[in-house]
């Protein structure tokens, strides 16, 4: 539509690594260095290894854009946000931004534990550049959004971590800014509040504000962003429609993370996740242990999927949904009854699902399998949706009234229901 709100041109940021002149050091080191280098002032700078955390980054953002930024850890996302929030200056290049910029690189920056919720709202607002009068006007909405009405005059050191985070996010969410920069702030808080935060950000975007959002949560990014910028090794790899870029990123992430011996991804279109834990081979078996994809209603169905942890995982949650061919969900453990286990790096195992006999009706089914972090379901390690897990359930051979059922059987499952007939004389 109109002129871009953000124009980044050839932005680069260089760091010197290790015991470098820019890391903090003692006076003695400098003096010693000065002696070593004699009068040559440039001497010590060239010795340190150099890292370009950002290099030749170019992009523009239009008003109302919600731009997601993705990339592996250490790819340069945070550095980019720091440059855009003016916390650090770029080494080269130029960024032009039109509008007030608010950054939420961390939830609750400047919150002081000894101060009350009310005091912290004003302090935090002031840190982010809000006027006291504006904060006063929005105070009630902020507190209501954070759901801490009863505790506004309690020091925040007595808050639960959830309350703390909600209040901190709420302050930022109600700032009237043209450009909002958000980094992983949503990775904290419970699922319901995360949803609320996403909703609030979506609202802000519809009001025409521009949002830059760094997250590892692909679902959140896909929901919220209309565009995604993928950064790797400090440079832009891809920039465009969010679905397209995310798909490319997930594919590449899986390729990079997965050692070859763990399950070959023949169904890449059905897979997503960060890959800390990955599913491997999947198989279906009947009660006698034979591998098959076709079952009778009277047979037990055993589904097994192998997995391997590539890093240490504190609590992996395994869950599944069983869906029929119309994608109607039949059984799910996505909420409740989940299997949780810690995993060591390199540990392998099998996740087994046993469907009892006489429970499924005759039709085609498939599984959605998932393994995620217990605290943060939005960042799944691996989600395997459908592809390759399909199986058929057929009627048993000895069924008596077959003609009555075929074509009329629209029920999804058979439950151990008891029926009785009482005849009243």
């Amino acid at each position, binding site marked *: 539509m109109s002129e871009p709100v953000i124009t980044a041109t050839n932005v680069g940021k260089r*760091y010197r690594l290790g015991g470098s002149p*820019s*890391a*903090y*050091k*003692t*006076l*003695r080191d*400098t003096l010693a260095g000065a002696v070593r280098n004699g009068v040559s002032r440039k001497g010590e700078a060239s010795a340190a290894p150099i890292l370009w955390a950002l290099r030749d980054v170019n992009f523009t953002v239009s*008003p109302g854009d919600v731009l997601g930024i993705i990339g592996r850890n250490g790819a340069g996302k945070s550095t980019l946000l*720091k*440059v*855009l*929030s*003016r*916390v*650090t*200056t*770029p*080494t*080269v*290049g*130029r*960024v*032009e*931004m*039109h*509008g*007030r*910029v608010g*950054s939420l*690189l*961390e939830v609750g*920056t*400047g919150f*002081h534990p*000894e*101060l009350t919720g009310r*005091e912290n709202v*004003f*302090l935090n607002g*002031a*840190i*982010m*550049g809000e*006027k*006291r009068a504006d904060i006063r006007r929005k105070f009630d909405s902020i507190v209501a959004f954070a759901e801490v009405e009863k505790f506004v005059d309690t020091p925040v050191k007595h808050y639960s971590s959830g309350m703390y985070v909600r209040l901190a996010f709420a302050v930022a969410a109600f700032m009237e800014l*043209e450009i909002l920069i958000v980094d992983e702030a949503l990775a904290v808080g419970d699922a319901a509040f995360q949803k609320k935060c996403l909703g609030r950000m979506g609202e802000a975007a519809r009001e*025409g504000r521009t949002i830059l959002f760094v997250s590892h949560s692909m679902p959140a990014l896909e929901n919220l962003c209309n565009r995604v910028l993928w950064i790797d090794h400090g440079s832009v790899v891809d920039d465009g429609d969010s679905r397209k870029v995310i798909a490319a990123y997930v594919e590449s992430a899986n390729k990079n993370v997965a050692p070859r011996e763990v399950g070959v991804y023949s169904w890449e279109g059905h897979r997503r996740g960060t890959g800390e834990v990955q599913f491997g081979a999947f198989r279906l078996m009947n009660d006698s242990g034979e591998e098959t994809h076709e079952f009778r209603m009277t047979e037990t169905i055993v589904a097994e999927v192998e997995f391997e942890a590539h890093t240490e995982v504190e609590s992996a949650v395994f869950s599944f949904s069983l869906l029929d061919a119309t994608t109607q969900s039949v059984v799910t453990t996505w909420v409740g009854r989940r299997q949780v286990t810690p995993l060591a790096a390199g540990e392998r195992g099998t996740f087994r699902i046993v469907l009892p006999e006489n429970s499924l009706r005759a039709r085609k089914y498939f599984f959605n399998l998932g393994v995620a972090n217990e605290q943060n379901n939005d960042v799944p390690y691996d989600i395997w949706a459908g592809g390759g897990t399909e199986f058929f359930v057929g009627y048993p051979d000895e069924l008596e009234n077959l003609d009555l059922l075929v074509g009329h059987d629209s029920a999804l499952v058979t439950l151990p229901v008891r029926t009785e007939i009482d005849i009243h004389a």
Partner: protein
Amino acid sequence: MSTEAVPTVVIEPSEGWVSLKLRELWQYRELLYFLTWRDVQVRYKQTALGVAWAVLQPLLTMLIFSVVFGRLANLPSDGLPYPVFSFAALLPWQLFSGALTRAGTSLVGSANLLTKVYFPRLIIPFSAVAAGLVDFAIAFLVLIVLLAYYGITPGVEILWVPVLVLFALASALAVGLWLSALNVKYRDVQHLIPFLVMAWMYASPVAYSANLVPSGPWRLVYALNPMTGVIQGFRWALTGGPAPGQMILVSAVVVIVLLVGGLFYFRRMERVFADVV
């Protein structure tokens, strides 16, 4: 969207000497207020004696000085009762030393802010300096009581007190700016500060009178220490006597030079704070 004027922000590498951007500092004056207020609020939280500390610290120091320097060493006190003589000096001194200490370590103490949010970094040492004013005001009331007890009535010179207070704060800021920026890079500074403060106190006429220093050129060299002017001025403003005009003039020049230099040095170092802290 409306066509109201939205600010344009240009982010570029900053090189060489930069402007002070005092206008931006003014725009963020509310943050200065809030950070100062936070320091004041938090200082005596979870202490049993609370704000009484603001009174106890100078009072106990005054008692010790009165015994050691007043009684045992029998130092001359310009004809004043030694407790009044030392307390009138301890107030501006503790205002200065507290402000200097806080300002010197302020940036490192606010590392989480520096690495997460943009605002004019000068706000941090400014607020650290300003936060000492509340303690000072409370202790000042005690000084008034002490003067009344010894039957001393301040003259019209007392009107100079606010100016001298600002002078003390400016001195603390001038040095604090250098120290805080240096401390980001060299953590030696925070170990140096307590020693510096102690040495500085003995170099200032807190426990003794500036009149012990031989008059003439030596007195002016002595006045290169800005706290000399402030402390002598403070005593004069409350208890009368000859005005230390020349001393204050010399001190003022030193403070202005240090302050302007400190502001520019701070602004120049500012761009690496977040990367180095």
